[in-house]
């Protein structure tokens, strides 16, 4: 991992020389094994797989050498960031063939070494099964899987490719070429020009033009400009920024360095969400490495440029993803936003000019400088250029991390890339934009996804979370869920947001408990309108969106709850009863598990649930092996699967 024999590079020329040397060495590389160490795969034991793989490689050292595969010279192994297809994890890939192994267990590594590396054979059971619900064939290479072939990766270009802890690896993949180009051949004005022409819009949610933000900061004539990278990705169900920070920290830093060069900033912060310790670790490692290599600190590459980057761990407050609240938090204060008429490019952190961009935005910058504004602008749609990363989660077959050009339809994303709904159930809605976003129904599946179309449809691009829902998801419950989330995260400074959320929750809670009254929906709509108009910051203004969008598209579900006391999805506990049907064979499992002794029945005879004792905890349904327990609402069976 030595970059320049411990000495700082000193000049742009030295850096490029070093990169060339590494590339030359890499040309000897015949094969490379990549173990995915994204959050999903780590949770499934990726670290143990890597450990076992190293052991197996060591055990087979002689045979491998005989086959012309010398460890660390012509054959190497590494842990990378997220490959994206979390559903199939843990994932191991072998380059340059692109062999794609899924669901790998530590003991499989022996077969991988003995069969694939030594005999050039594939380990059949580990191959990805195409359309596993339709009996499709097995796929050898990930390029042939629709999940990958339909994607276009810009922000995620190096995630899953490089070892995030290895600087040389990053150089070998073309890292820092853009920074070298910017600092040696371009003026700060040129850099801003390129970013502006590329049409890059902030990936954090609002979609403000990055070039324009930078230019307006340049106009403020002050000595000091702060640069902040917002990595406080708080949207539940979104993990794009996490994957980038953990899997490719050098690209984030390179983007920030280019930004700092363009703006003349000397001090920068990265604000990382409290729940992402690995992101902090990898970013800090990268910062230390760059500082030692003379790419951060004073007199960077001998050009006189100075940049110090520090990391701040967030306190776990959702509102701190809002830029002005984030700045208060960096000052050590309570993260309360302030009114928008004060612009942060003029008075931001410590009341000094500040430019704040999202992780994904910064990561796009090196690619733009490297390949040119025209290249970036050639992708996407008229007003939304480039690509966007999404985390595709919920009731979708291929849960994971994806990146597509702007303008792909929701149908392409959910059904072609995502593989459709789990168990081929009917699609009901997709929720985009996190707690401030909205739910879109099946009728909107042909919507071409970009900043403006989503906003027009009542949803939001947000940071890129996409939660897919099927007919077993109750839309009133989803609205209540988001409002409950926002109650916990509202900072409490302004009344419309603080009190409005409580009142909304109260009304929604009554509706889901079967205590809703006619007229409640109108009250909710009035409340939502007041909050949208009168709240202080974007959190409060957009807080009613989950409610307004679900009322707009799923009004009849609300009305059913209120008028008939029916939850058609079988979710709201007070509106459903559990019932054992005639297929029950009297195995007694549910009776033994029932915490309130509500189930009675003799062995091998039909069991019965006493509705007065039942607390709708769902344990019986989740333990029943014969699927004989139904959920009823309004006298009809509306069963849902407890486990997807």
């Amino acid at each position, binding site marked *: 991992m030595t970059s320049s024999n411990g000495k700082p590079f000193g000049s742009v020329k030295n850096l490029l020389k070093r990169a060339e040397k590494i590339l030359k060495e890499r040309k000897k590389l015949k094969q490379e094994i990549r173990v995915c160490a994204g*959050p*999903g795969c780590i*949770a*499934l034991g990726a670290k143990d797989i890597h450990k076992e793989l190293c052991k197996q490689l060591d055990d087979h050292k002689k045979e491998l050498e005989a086959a012309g595969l010398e460890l660390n010279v012509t054959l190497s192994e590494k842990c990378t960031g997220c490959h994206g297809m*979390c559903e199939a*994890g843990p994932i191991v890939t072998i380059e340059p063939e692109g062999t794609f192994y899924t669901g790998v267990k530590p003991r499989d590594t022996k077969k991988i070494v003995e069969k694939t590396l030594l005999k050039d054979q594939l380990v059949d059971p580990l191959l990805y099964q195409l359309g596993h619900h339709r009996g499709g064939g097995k796929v050898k290479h990930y390029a042939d899987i629709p999940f990958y072939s339909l994607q276009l990766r810009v922000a995620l270009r190096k995630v899953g490719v490089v070892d995030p802890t290895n600087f040389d690896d990053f150089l070998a993949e073309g890292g820092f070429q853009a920074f070298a180009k910017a600092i040696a051949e371009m003026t700060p004005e040129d850099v801003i020009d390129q970013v502006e022409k590329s049409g890059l819009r902030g990936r954090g949610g609002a979609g403000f033009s990055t070039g324009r933000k930078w230019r307006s900061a340049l106009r403020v004539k002050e000595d000091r400009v702060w640069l902040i990278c917002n990595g406080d990705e*708080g*949207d*539940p*169900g979104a*993990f794009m920024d*996490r994957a980038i920070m953990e899997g490719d920290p050098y690209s984030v830093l390179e983007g920030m360095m280019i930004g700092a060069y363009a703006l003349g900033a000397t001090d920068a912060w990265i604000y990382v969400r*409290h*729940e*992402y310790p690995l992101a902090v670790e990898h970013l800090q490692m990268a910062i230390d490495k760059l500082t030692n290599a003379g790419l951060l600190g004073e007199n960077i590459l001998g050009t006189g440029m100075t940049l110090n980057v520090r990391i*701040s*761990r*967030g*306190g*776990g*407050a*959702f509102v701190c993803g809002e830029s002005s609240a984030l700045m208060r*938090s*960096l*000052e*050590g*204060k*309570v*993260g309360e936003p302030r009114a928008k008429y004060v612009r942060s490019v003029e008075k931001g952190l410590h009341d000094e000019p500040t430019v704040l961009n999202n992780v994904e935005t910064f990561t796009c910058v090196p690619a733009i400088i490297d390949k040119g504004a025209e290249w970036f602008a050639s992708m996407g749609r008229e007003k939304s250029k480039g690509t966007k990363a999404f*985390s595709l*989660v*919920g*009731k979708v077959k291929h*849960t*994971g991390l994806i990146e597509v050009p702007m303008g792909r339809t929701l149908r392409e994303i959910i059904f072609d890339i995502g593989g459709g709904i789990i168990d081929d159930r009917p699609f009901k809605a997709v*929720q985009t934009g*996190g707690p401030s976003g909205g739910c879109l129904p099946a009728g909107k599946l042909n919507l071409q996804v970009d900043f403006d179309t989503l906003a027009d449809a009542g949803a939001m691009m947000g940071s890129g*979370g996409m*939660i897919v*829902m099927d007919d077993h*998801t109750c839309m009133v419950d*989803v609205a209540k*869920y*988001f409002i409950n*989330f926002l109650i*916990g995260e509202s*900072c409490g400074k302004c009344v419309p947001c603080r009190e409005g959320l409580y009142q909304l929750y109260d009304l929604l809670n009554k509706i889901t408990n079967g205590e809703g009254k006619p007229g409640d929906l109108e009250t909710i709509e009035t409340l939502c309108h007041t909050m949208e108009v009168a709240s202080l910051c974007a959190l409060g203004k957009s807080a009613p969106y989950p409610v307004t969008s679900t009322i707009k598209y799923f009004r009849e579900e609300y009305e059913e709850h209120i008028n008939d006391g029916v939850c058609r999805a079988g979710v709201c*506990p007070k509106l459903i009863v559990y019932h054992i049907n005639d297929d029950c064979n009297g195995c007694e499992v549910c009776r033994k*598990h029932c*915490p309130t002794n509500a189930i009675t029945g003799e062995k091998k005879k039909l069991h019965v649930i006493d509705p007065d004792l039942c*607390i709708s*905890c*769902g*344990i*019986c349904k*989740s*333990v029943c092996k014969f699927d004989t327990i139904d959920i009823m609402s309004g006298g009809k069976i509306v069963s849902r699967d*407890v*486990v*997807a």
Partner: protein
Amino acid sequence: MTPSKKAGVGSPRSGAKTSKTKKKNGAGKNASKVILAATDEILAHYPLEEASLIMVLQELNDQLNWLPPKALERVAKKLNVPFGKVQGVATFYRAFSLKPKGKKTVKVCTGTACHVRGASMLVDELKRSLEVEPGEGISEDGNFSLETVNCVGACAMAPVAMIGDHYYASMTPGNIAKMLKKEKPE
């Protein structure tokens, strides 16, 4: 999260609990010494100014698992920040706990992906079987606390529960008892 009214007291519910608490207070002098020593040690690494506040509290919370009032008082004094402000910051951020915790904390992911796959049923079942509320209290045997987290980024395995570093994937209300049994501290 509301600040605890009394130092070192969880949520006294039964007689047995109260006697346990008394025992704790008996050894209280020693404990508060440890707390203050840890606080001073952490404060020594930071410039004594308001901007250090969150980072100091984070380290304290990491080390002690919660923020005892004594420690907060010390931090306020040393950083020259009014105690009310320290309390304000400590209650504002989710990362801080103003109550002591059990030996292990069960974290249930309540991110949207987990929610649509039934996370709320897990929370209800844990609340019932541990007799605690999320973010508040310790189970009768002192072993477990319960917390909900917004998203742990493991949406493919939803719904997810976490204890320590271990992820429990595709949880159902039915296998919670098994998980708690397995994780029960010695």
